[in-house]
């Protein structure tokens, strides 16, 4: 059995020093807990949570009325397997390369991001990136593709002429 008293004492000391340094640094640099209220506006998620996330029923309304552009954060092959009608594909990992595809979209247009569902965060990350790119009206349909297909809403499968069918 290795003597743990001294290592424990040292470990506690390191944690205490880290706590002091962590709070001192964030307070001094105005980050984390001490970030000014305005800085939080770099993310759409820092707005009122209720208005940022779109429930399934709202998503259906926006889809049928065509008042919003759905942005699919999943990989291209998943998008081609099926997606919300009218959605455009902008995989998170290809954001920088493909963000120009949204150049025709007005900066104040309502964009709704989604990914697989509640087990992924790409929709939230994509919304944050879109917001940082200047889109001022970005929402997240957090239920995503899983919730959408569970309700058998109208979906748009891969166009037959795309040349890239779904994997068998």
């Amino acid at each position, binding site marked *: 059995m290795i003597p743990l008293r001294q290592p424990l004492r040292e470990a506690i000391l390191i944690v205490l020093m880290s706590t002091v340094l962590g709070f001192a640094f*964030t307070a001094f640099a105005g*980050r984390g807990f001490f970030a000014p209220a305005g800085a939080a506006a770099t993310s759409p998620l820092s707005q009122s949570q209720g208005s940022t996330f779109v429930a399934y029923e709202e998503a259906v309304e926006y889809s049928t009325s065509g008042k919003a552009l759905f942005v699919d954060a999943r990989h291209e092959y998943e998008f081609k397997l099926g997606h919300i009608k009218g959605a455009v594909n902008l995989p*998170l*990992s290809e954001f920088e390369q493909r963000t120009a595809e949204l150049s025709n979209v007005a900066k104040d247009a309502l964009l709704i991001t989604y990914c697989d569902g509640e087990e992924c*965060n790409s929709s939230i*990350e994509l919304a944050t990136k879109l917001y940082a790119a200047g889109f001022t009206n970005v929402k997240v349909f957090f239920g995503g593709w899983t919730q959408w297909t569970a309700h058998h809403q109208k979906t748009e499968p891969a166009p037959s002429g795309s040349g890239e069918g779904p994997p068998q």
Partner: protein
Amino acid sequence: MNRLLSHAYLVVAVRAILGLIFVLASIDKIADPAAFAKSIMNYKIMSPGIAMLIATILPWVELLCGLALLCGVFLRGSSLLLCILLVLFTAGVFSALVRGLDISCGCFTQDPSAGKISWLKIGENTAMIVLSLFLLLSSNMKLSLEHHLRSQPAEEH
């Protein structure tokens, strides 16, 4: 095994590897605690308040432990702390993988488009747990500031 544990250069090499890894891992997190808190929240284990508290303190624990290993002070304490942290990190990644979460690790960079977690991360962490346990059990303190400071008063008498 005892020869390995007391091998001065092996101990120094392991200290350098683990120390560098944790110093490098801490920089991005210290620079942007809010982004790190978000990475923690992606694991869907804790509330935003707790995540921010961890994001405020944990990067400094990593930095101090890394520096301690590099300089050779508080060697046992930092090894113990890193071992505990790595076990917790591994448990977090494991639970995220089991729940099928499609998230970035948040380990070295807070860029959400960085690589997603995979079983490889469990392997990496396990290797680091072995290294930190090795340091905790190691009896050789040579080539460390701690050893240097302790040996000086003895030499004076």
